[in-house]
């Protein structure tokens, strides 16, 4: 597919985090990890086993976990916290705001099971507002990698990046289409397929959906450009403007509320610098529900077909 090498194997992005964290445990003695009773779900077992004195089970007490992490960071450690995205953000927003973001602590908030693809657990756990909450905080970096390999690389990169950061990943097995070894640069958009007719800016699981959409669009005679925005903040403004200038219309795609997500970050850039026809593929001000990830992506309008339709609308508005 294009010039991407798609692995025959699928893996969950959370396992990429677990692998990256385990490697960091061996390579960086300052890295410590905390988990709020979800070690298996977050794939933190390997780190815990190899480095028990640098791993802290905090129990079901996420607010305390964020504070302990802030204290460890103050002392010069590089703490990685692990729990579901819902409990990594909404539940502990004030702790993150005061003790981590405002205090500029080098804490890496690692959040799994984000979005609708959590599936059957339903809306209590399917957070779709976390990118918005986190990107609003000054000092905070927000990263949403697209596959297993990239989640591993983003985890490794975070240890060398000073400052508070939010790393969002998910539960389902997903296609692997980025290189295992790559130069992952925080804040630098990743060109996956150059194109001339429409720019698709996607993040997280929707990057794969966008690649599939681009393939279908090609058969319809539309040459889509697909750019992976793995860093929502700081946003690669230049990459967005260069692409939008070239194609003349834009689609954003994400597993998040339209309010507060990647789409509104891109819209802000375009509105200020280069007003361009734009369509957004995102959840439209609704809570999710129980169901399989595939069913939910279809029902809530964030599937391949939605990216295709949005691209056609965008092209028609040029």
């Amino acid at each position, binding site marked *: 597919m294009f010039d991407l090498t798609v692995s025959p194997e699928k893996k969950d992005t959370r396992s990429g985090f677990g692998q990256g964290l385990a490697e960091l445990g061996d390579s960086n003695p300052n890295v*410590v990890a905390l988990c709020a009773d979800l070690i298996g779900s977050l794939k933190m077992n390997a780190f815990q086993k190899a480095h028990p*004195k*640098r791993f*802290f089970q*905090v*129990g079901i*007490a996420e*607010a*305390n*976990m*964020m*504070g*302990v*992490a*802030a*204290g*460890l*960071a*103050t*002392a*010069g*450690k590089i*703490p990685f916290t692990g729990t579901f995205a819902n409990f990594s953000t909404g539940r502990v927003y*004030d*702790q993150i*705001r*005061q*003790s981590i973001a*405002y*205090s*500029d*602590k080098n804490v890496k908030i690692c959040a799994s099971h984000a979005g609708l693809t959590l599936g059957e657990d339903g809306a209590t756990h399917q957070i779709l507002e976390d990118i918005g909450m986190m990107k609003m905080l000054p000092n905070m970096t927000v990263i949403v990698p697209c596959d297993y390999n990239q989640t591993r690389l983003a985890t490794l990169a975070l240890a060398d990046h000073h400052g508070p950061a939010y790393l969002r990943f998910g539960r389902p097995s997903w296609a692997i289409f980025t290189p295992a070894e790559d130069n992952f640069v925080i804040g630098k958009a990743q060109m996956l397929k150059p194109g001339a007719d429409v720019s698709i800016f996607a993040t997280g699981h929707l990057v794969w959906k966008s690649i599939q959409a681009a393939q279908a669009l090609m058969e319809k005679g539309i040459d889509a450009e697909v750019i992976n925005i793995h860093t929502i903040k700081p946003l690669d403004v230049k990459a967005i403007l260069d692409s939008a200038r070239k194609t003349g219309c834009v689609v954003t795609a994400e597993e998040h509320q339209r309010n507060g997500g990647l789409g509104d970050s891109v819209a802000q850039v375009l509105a200020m610098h280069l007003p361009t026809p734009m369509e957004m593929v995102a959840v439209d001000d609704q809570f999710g529900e129980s169901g399989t990830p595939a069913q939910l992506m279809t029902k809530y309008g964030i599937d391949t077909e939605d990216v295709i339709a949005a691209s056609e609308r965008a092209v028609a508005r040029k």
Partner: protein
Amino acid sequence: MEATEISPTMSHVSDVNELKRIASQVRRDILRMVHAVNSGHPGGSLGCTDFFVSMYFNIMKHDPKAFNMTAKGEDAFFLSNGHISPVWYSTLAHSGYFPVTELNTFRKLNSRLQGHPATEEGLPGIRIASGSLGQGLSVACGMAQAKIIDKDENTVYTLHGDGELQEGQIWEAAMYAAHYKLDNLIATVDCNGRQIDGDLEDVMSLGDLGAKWKAFGWTVLEMNGHDYDQILSTMAKAKSLRGQGKPIVILMTTEMGEGVDFMVGSHKWHGVAPNDEQLASALSQIKETLGDYPA
């Protein structure tokens, strides 16, 4: 009298009368700081003055001239009830962290002395923002945990308001500290029995506080926060309990507004500044010992 810089040799003061002299100046500073901007929290600040002066001039191992964010090789102090920032700022300034003259920037635009303590402006002595209550004990647990990893024998201290203990996060952290046997952690609770809306017993009773901490696995000590002999001996005792595998909490009885007759013992001065007349009356009761900072 001109404001004077404190020489580094004053960083450790063993004479109780000298500690009281410093405390007298800190109380004047608190009143003048909150009066100057007609805002801030004098009540709890005055109540904790004797504790702060004891900590920074006698108990803690610290180096005001070379502030070290990581606190490696020294004791660390976290103020969890950040609204009593005036007493902390004055104590930090007099112990040499920054010029005493800077106290006149408190709560003003472009100041390092924010209404509630913050690290954003780089004020030496502050390691984390506080103000939204209940977060400091968790942060202190993290620092205490790091000291264990690093085999650093120094102590982590915190101060909390008693009203602050109504926050659930405090008890999450209390569980954590006991579970991880953080006996290098000494928390002090300012038990003045008051909070913004009134007496603590009326707003939200804490019940038997000592029993609560004991049940959470902590060693509990008590002291009178205005009796220097008790403060010094209790803090020394708390430190001697290292090695028993239990975090230590000190329930410190104080009077909100201590030192000013019309403020003492009332919640009404929690977050209200004195007017000109009240300031004059308050200052007439507290001796200028080290020199008032220039307004």
